[in-house]
């Protein structure tokens, strides 16, 4: 059974459809990059999949479960989402922030159980930021902060992970570290989809690609065929021999 299955997804913000009749499926272990021009609907797609943005027609299933009408606390046990904007004015420690990934499992009022603490420990280990556990999230570097919110998502222990521009504003070292981490997650069976801005990053482990063409058009397929210089050049409207196109 696919980990994530999207069928006939159609959405507009009121004018022309931003996403029209989109269908694709991810299996456990798939790593999909979402590429395309600014404003073509990449980030919107992720929010439509999670149901945070309503108003779409079509169907989204996670592990066979239809997302429409699903309570957020059920959804948060099936799917985790790392937003592109994680600003908060409050100085939560990294550990507190990661433990909040257990919200759906811990219930509302009781403290965190031993299982919750272990899940947080594992997430901190896996993202390599255990040493930062006691620090305030607002004192971290951009890269460390991104890893902290990925750790929060991992503490949710879901089969599907969506990330909106997880590598923006990061230096090359952290870009590589984040992609490497995501690749490792897929090896242990998670299905991962990430909106990326640079096609070159997709070469670091993605096996599937979803290309937005703008105006509602898209193409989905294996990374090898989707990320060919010709296909990318057409999507971004630059010559195929541009140094920005990876080969």
């Amino acid at each position, binding site marked *: 059974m696919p980990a994530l299955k999207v069928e006939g997804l159609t959405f507009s913000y009121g004018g022309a459809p931003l996403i029209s009749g989109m269908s694709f499926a991810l299996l456990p272990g798939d790593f999909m990059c979402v590429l395309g021009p600014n404003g073509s609907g990449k980030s919107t797609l992720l*929010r439509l999949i*999670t149901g*945070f943005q309503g108003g779409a027609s079509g169907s989204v299933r996670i592990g066979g479960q239809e997302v429409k009408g699903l*309570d*957020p*606390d059920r*959804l*948060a*046990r099936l*799917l*985790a*989402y790392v*937003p592109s*904007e*994680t*600003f*908060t*004015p*409050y*100085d*939560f*420690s990294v550990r*507190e*922030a990661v433990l*909040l*990934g257990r*919200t*759906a*499992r*811990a*219930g*509302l*009022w009781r403290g965190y159980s031993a299982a919750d603490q272990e899940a947080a420990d594992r997430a901190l280990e896996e993202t390599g930021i255990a040493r930062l556990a006691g620090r305030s999230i607002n004192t971290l570097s951009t890269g460390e902060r991104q890893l902290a919110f990925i750790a*929060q998502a991992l503490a*949710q222990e879901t089969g599907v992970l969506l990330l909106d521009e997880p590598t923006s504003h990061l230096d090359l070292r952290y870009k590589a570290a984040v992609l490497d981490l995501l690749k490792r997650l897929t090896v242990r069976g998670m299905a991962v989809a990430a909106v990326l801005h640079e096609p070159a990053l997709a070469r670091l482990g993605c096996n599937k690609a979803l290309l937005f063409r703008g105006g509602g058009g898209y193409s989905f397929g294996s990374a090898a065929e989707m990320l060919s210089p010709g296909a990318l050049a057409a999507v971004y409207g630059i010559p195929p021999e541009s140094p920005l196109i990876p080969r």
Partner: protein
Amino acid sequence: MTKGKYLLLPAALAAACLLSLAAGPAGLSPEIIWNLRLPRTLAALAVGAGLGLAGALFQGVLKNPLSDPYILGTSAGATAAAVLCFIAGVDRDSPLFFLAVFTGAFGDTFLSYWLARLAGRLSDASLVLAGVAVSAFLTALVMLTLTAARERSFSLFYFVLGGLYMARPGVLIASGVIIAVCGGLALVRWRALDAMSLGAQSAYHLGVSPEKERILFFVFACAATSAAVALGGTIGFVGLMTPHIVRLLTGPSSRTLVPASAIGGAALLAAADAAGRSLFAPAEIPAGVVMALAGAPFFMWLLWRSARGRT
């Protein structure tokens, strides 16, 4: 948090209570303390707890460190409803009075919130602007009413200024119970409030319904504010300042922040009221004026700090 920090809040509360019981031009006779200062101290504690609690809830659920019942227009809505009730002759300890005040508070808060959302993305500044607009309009209405009903406006004038003079036992008990219940119900949902303080989008994906939590915490915060306004009129800045001070001791998690803000608000207002009674004795400064004198510079400092944080 270390043990010493835990003890700091109760110590501040005890000190504020002693100060409030002892301070004032009339000396230290047992009758004065028992008949005048004790009810007044209890009223200050209840009002402060309600406002501190409401501030912590608003700041968390809106992810906005500049929010409190005064700035969002909650207090102005409650005050306007209370003044209307006075004019209409509704008794101050009747359930209808509390219901009307709550309706004013809740309606106004949602109006500010809705106006701020109209501006597109909900930003800290747009919420403050909307609150200021709504408050200014309602305050003008209140002033209009005060001028029109001149023969009854003397006690109303002091009510609007925010003072703790004539706490009726019935109102004191009702307000205290409402604030305690709201605090308890909010504390039970501490994890949802923590999730909301990461933003509505994060909260949703962590498993919390932002729409539902927003309404619930607005209800708790507005009910606590209404109870505080019913007892002490419009007193600003307690809700704004207390959570910021308390966070330095407890950290940002609502599990400790919610009860600590109630305790801290109680201590802060009891101290402010004691200061208002004694600094310029025999003249008495309303607690609301004392809080504005201390709170407005604090708000300016917050604005300055948040502007610096974004660059």
